[in-house]
């Protein structure tokens, strides 16, 4: 499967950012990273973002570079709405124009973005890392019992205890089931 074009990827990220904001997200880079990781998987599309375990949760350097390029092109911008926190990422007027130009061609991904944004928007960074790591470990070890996967998470992120890791896996499994029902047009990857 060929990677979708740069313009479409920009529109896709704009869509995800807008949806995260709509559902009340702070929308820092971590939110976009973890949401895109799951959205790409649910949509089973080739956005071209390779995710690796970095600082113990899935992270894409390609996506990091793309966000930097989009900021440089004036498609997105940083804002600092609250003292003591890192930047929140917002879409500019030009970014909305890029989205409008390409929106029809990313229609099939809207539902995955909407589903993920609704799920993750109000989670803080600690919680996002836990859920995304649970997703990653589950995807890699689909047949392992929950307790084994929880131990793996605890091994990767020692500050997440096994009980909290088990809870995160249960949330991920429940959400995966929900995604199967709600994103019927999307081919889900098999755990």
């Amino acid at each position, binding site marked *: 499967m060929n990677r979708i074009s740069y313009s479409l990827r920009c529109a896709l990220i704009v869509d995800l950012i807008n949806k995260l904001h709509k559902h009340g997200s702070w929308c820092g880079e971590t939110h976009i990273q973890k949401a895109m990781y799951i959205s790409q998987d649910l949509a089973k599309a080739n956005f071209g973002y390779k995710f*690796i375990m970095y600082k113990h949760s899935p992270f894409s350097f390609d996506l990091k570079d793309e966000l930097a390029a989009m900021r440089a*092109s*004036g498609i997105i911008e940083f804002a600092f709405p609250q003292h*003591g926190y890192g930047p929140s990422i917002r879409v500019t007027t030009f970014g909305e124009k890029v989205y409008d130009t390409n929106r029809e061609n990313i229609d099939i991904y809207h539902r995955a973005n909407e589903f993920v944004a609704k799920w993750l928007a109000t989670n803080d960074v600690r919680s996002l890392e836990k859920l995304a790591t649970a997703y990653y470990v589950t995807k890699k070890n689909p047949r392992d019992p929950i307790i084994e996967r929880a131990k793996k998470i605890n091994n990767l992120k020692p500050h997440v205890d096994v009980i909290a890791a088990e809870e995160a896996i249960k949330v991920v499994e429940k959400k995966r089931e929900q995604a199967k029902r709600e994103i019927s047009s999307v081919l889900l990857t098999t755990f």
Partner: protein
Amino acid sequence: MKYNHEFRDPIHTFISLRTDERRMVDSQPFQRLRHIHQLALTYLVYPGSTHKRFEHSLGVMHLASRIFDVVTAPENIFDESVRRIIPDDQTKQYWKSVVRAAALCHDLGHLPFSHAAEDQLLPDGYDHEKVTKDIISSPEMAEIWRTMTPPLRCDDIIKLAVGPKKADPLELSTWETILAEIIVGDAFGADRMDYLLRDSFHAGVEYGKFDHNRLINTLRILPQSYADTDEPALGLESGGLESSEGLMVARYFMYKQVYLHPIRRVYDIHLIDFLKSWLPGAKFSTRLEKHLRITDAEVLAAIHKACATPSSSNHILAKRIQCRDHFRFFYLASSGDKQGGKLVPGKTIAAAAIEQFGKIAIRYDHIPPKVSAPNFPVRRYDGTIESSLKSSPILEKLPSIEVDTVYCDKSILADAVKWKQDNMETLLGLK
């Protein structure tokens, strides 16, 4: 640790080595770096830029070692979450040796002329970091790691030498990630510090200088409380913020003035054209024994020979480099050119120019916009931690760097300029 050997260096004055580290430097893969230009053919534009990867790698080791000492010194650790990840003294010494070895080896996989030819002349799935990994784990190097005191684990060196982005499938712990940042990190990696200082020195461009001594002395491992995460990262005392800004501004100017100079870039394109024609199968071999045998010297000899032989199939390609018969740029994108909705206007211009003048007369160069806004923890004077992007308006607002340039054969330059003036607005939807 006792350092018994010294190199004189124009940037760092003296660079010291232990005897067992000397064996790394004397190895064939490392000695090969004496013949790989740090900046490819940049010396055709900036004549002083003839320095090699060899001295840069020594410089990176020197700086990485200094940074390691500063950030792991007990008096520089303030937070319990950080103290937990710092190993005991003996293990710390092991990791210092790994940091020095990884810094020395981080560029071993470079092809002739460094980055210039990498993207198009290696098989799919290969880049210089992958070749670096292969060399570090080769029998010759493995024997060196095995006999060091203490012996070093190959995978540990690989993780730090190529960093988390390229280490896959190896996974890095928080501690290893911080150590990799010391070497190849975007914000204050020793690699970046050394190449800016060294390249500016040799190019004769003052912009690359910044207060690296102050920067190193203020580096710290800090919690990222502003990001709601428990994982520490490499950061800075607020007193070093200006030197960090200095580094990023130096980088911006060096990219504008040297690395992305349009004539320098077109020499890369001509070099790739020559190599594609000259190399068997239009690719470099990834077999280690072949990789280690080929350097800039072999390629330059081939260019000289082809240039002196009019009957050679590579004669014209070699002449473009050897006789400065390079293509001229006739379109450099500006931000206004994107207002018609085309995010990469040069690509549109290049495609139309190829239709107009033919493929052989047109070359296109594109690097997507890059802006380095490094987000790292800064420890303020009152002990609180905040994001560098909050602390520094300069880091947050650094301009972007982008290449979107169309070149043509100099014989059609006037026609190409006129054609562009007549057609650009229509092509880019600006009318």
